[in-house]
């Protein structure tokens, strides 16, 4: 029996068990692909993706790391309808089965999680279409021009938001001039340029520039809109990483024993599971932490209620609302801090950083963990367009400060897209300024 036939047979049994178990996944198309394909998909994040050098860089770094044996990507799963899951062709058959059960957990979240279920489910087609258009732009305006605009747009890909439509009166789409108008001898209405109306403030910096920048050409606006859509697509996924991996691990852990495996496969399954879901002394391993958290919720509330909670929380919310002292003990959680230490070696003392296990109460630990999980990219708001078209931005205060050098360089990218000066006020109202580019 070929591998494909065996896995197909396994999939239909797995699917029945999954429904009986009580999850409701979106159907999944599994593709068995070689390792470099997995690296590629992980670097680009999506099939159909357009080209840019940063993805080539990520692909290469991943390949170098994996080729050295630092980690392994068993699968890569995409939130589409049907979902697409890529399986590494060098996995053992048992590992493929575990990964397939694992993927159904992801697929359950894709279909039912509050933040994910209404997201775009054909985004790979959107990207594939834009890839064609970008290639056309490269032929028409030059690959360097496309790269220049992508460099800048990707710099602010995280500064996007979905906001209510702008207040501005609906402007009629530019209609073609009526070729017969002059037959009546009518006066042409003078083309009057309406000052643009903005709905401000807005956190959708990239969208604002794409729509209102006075210097961009239409194809450049199109590039910006695609980058913005991609930013919006990825934003909610950052908030549910632990939920995703935890649920997927919970599902494979409970689904596989319900299925008959070949003799010997159970050992391989246990080996892979143990390799992936293991506690990490220095950071949360989402597989282990999420899985154990899910187990504890099911014990406390029963499967149905636990799954409901799971489908409406974020990583940070889960910790804030459900991490009590019992769970802290069960998950063996602790805070630590780095202190400077020293070890003696034959060649003299070697300076070290030592991580010290700290005593801390549940409240502190919960707050620290929830805050850390809630950290997203800095929020930058457009507050006004000032004299000489200067774009005025504000950093919405959060716990952190902006890195000054990176901020200045990012503002230069914004200046190039905006075509005029840019000023950003940070949380302490300290301004960063970028002058418009000199012409000639």
């Amino acid at each position, binding site marked *: 029996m070929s591998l494909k036939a065996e896995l197909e047979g396994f999939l239909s049994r797995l699917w029945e068990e999954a429904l009986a178990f009580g999850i409701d996944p979106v159907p999944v198309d599994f*593709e068995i692909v070689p390792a470099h*394909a997995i690296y*590629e998909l992980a670097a680009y994040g999506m099939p159909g993706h357009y080209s840019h050098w940063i993805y080539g860089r990520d692909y290469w770094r991943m390949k*170098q790391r994996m080729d050295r044996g630092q980690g392994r990507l068993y699968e890569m799963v995409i939130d589409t309808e049907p979902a697409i899951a890529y399986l590494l062709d060098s996995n053992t058959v048992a590992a493929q089965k575990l990964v397939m059960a694992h993927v159904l957990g992801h697929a359950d979240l894709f279909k039912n999680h509050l933040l994910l279920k209404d997201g775009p489910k054909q985004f790979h087609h959107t990207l594939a279409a834009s890839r064609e258009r970008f290639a056309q732009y490269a032929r028409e305006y030059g690959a360097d021009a496309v790269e220049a605009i992508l460099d800048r747009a990707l710099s602010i890909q995280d500064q996007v938001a979905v906001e209510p439509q702008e207040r501005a009166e609906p402007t009629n789409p530019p209609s073609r001039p009526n070729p017969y108008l002059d037959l009546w001898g009518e006066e042409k209405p003078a083309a009057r340029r309406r000052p643009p109306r903005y709905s401000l403030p807005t956190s959708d910096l990239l969208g604002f520039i794409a729509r209102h920048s006075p210097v961009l050409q239409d194809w450049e606006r199109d590039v910006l809109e695609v980058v913005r859509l991609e930013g919006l697509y990825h934003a909610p996924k950052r908030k549910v990483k632990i939920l995703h991996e935890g649920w997927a691990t919970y599902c494979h852990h409970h689904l596989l024993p319900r299925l008959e495996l070949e003799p010997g496969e159970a050992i391989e399954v246990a080996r892979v599971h143990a390799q992936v879901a293991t506690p990490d002394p220095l950071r949360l391993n989402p597989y282990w932490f999420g899985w154990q958290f899910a187990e504890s919720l099911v014990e406390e509330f029963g499967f149905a209620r636990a799954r409901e909670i799971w489908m409406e929380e974020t990583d940070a919310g889960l910790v804030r609302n459900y991490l009590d002292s019992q769970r802290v003990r069960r998950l063996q959680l602790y805070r630590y801090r780095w202190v400077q230490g020293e070890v003696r070696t034959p060649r003299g003392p070697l300076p070290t*950083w030592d991580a010290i296990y700290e005593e801390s109460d549940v409240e502190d630990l919960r707050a620290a963990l929830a805050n850390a999980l809630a950290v997203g*990219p800095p929020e930058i708001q457009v507050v006004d367009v000032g004299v000489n078209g200067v774009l005025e931005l504000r950093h919405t205060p959060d716990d952190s400060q902006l*890195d000054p050098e990176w901020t200045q360089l990012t503002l230069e990218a914004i200046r190039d897209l905006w075509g005029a000066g840019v000023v950003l006020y940070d949380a302490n109202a300290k301004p960063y300024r970028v002058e418009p580019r000199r012409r000639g």
Partner: protein
Amino acid sequence: MPGSVSEGNWDLAGRGSLDQARHLDRLREAIRQKLPVVVAETPLIEGQTQKVKVPVKVLELPRFRPKMPSAPTGGVGQGPGEPGDIIARVPRGGQGQGGGDQQPGDQPGEHEIEVELDIRTAIAMVFEDLQLPNLQDRGGQDLWRPKLQWNSRRRHGTLPTLSRRATLKEALARSLAEGKPLNFTPDDLRFRAAREEPEPITQAAIYLLRDISGSMGGERKYLSRVLTFWIVTWLRQQYQTVAVEFWVHDVSAQKTDEAQFFGLAEGGGTLAAPAYQAIQQYMQVHHPSSQWNTFVFHFTDGDVADGHAAFEAAQQLCANVRWFGLVELQPPNYFLHSPSRLSHLLEELPRPPYRHVLLNKRSDVLQAIKLLLQEEEASA
């Protein structure tokens, strides 16, 4: 409806490598700046087929990001333990864990990656950057030597040297002149013959002389190693045959091999004059300047105990070599570039062939190569 299983379909096929090539393009400048010093481990004599690994920092796009704390703070972990336990220990290097002092954008980011390059590609990149002119053939009879060229004809010779084409031509011409059909006579025979013609000498001998007195270890050994690589590589590109001679000296000079050249170290004082004399004597026997283009490079910290004798020995050497380069390796934090005793002694040598570079840090290697390998105008 559970979905499906299929094999081998993914949409991005090959895109990663293409975009990686573009990424490498953008890294080119960073690689080029690193190249001169990453060749240190490459052997000089048979190093031409290897790969070099160039560590470069990855490129990042600028973005809004929080300021990194200057020292690592802490976090939340999982596992057994008691308050006060040390749960992990990492060496504290120069950059620590924060690493927030890096520049984004076209400046390197905080992560390093390794680019593997073919050594030939690497060499081409460096020399392209240096834009060194090719060496001119030096005029004068001493760099020409006679060579037999088979480009002449004669009437007598041995049968294997018979030129059938020339013979046929002769026979045709004679037969036509006589108004007879084509026939051959012994007088028609023509034979190929060799004539002596001058040919430029395309062989070079490089004498690498290293001062092994105590102060020439560590970084200075490394720098001399890097520099010798580029010197030998460059001259290899200029001449068909290149012989490399390794010499070391303290108060006396000694011929060695490549491994010992970099490995040897002695204490005590050092003299330059005996080394110059020894090289000169050896050179006259093995690489006479009538047959060879000779190059001498002396790697030293310049802290010699010589008197005027060093100048005289060097002057004699200069009369017989094409270049005589003094590479002065100073301690990394040497206060100002004040000339050493040796370079002071040799100041009056004719230029060319004398040339002199000071080197004390890796970032200056490229400049030093350029100064050392530049063909000077022979106006002096």
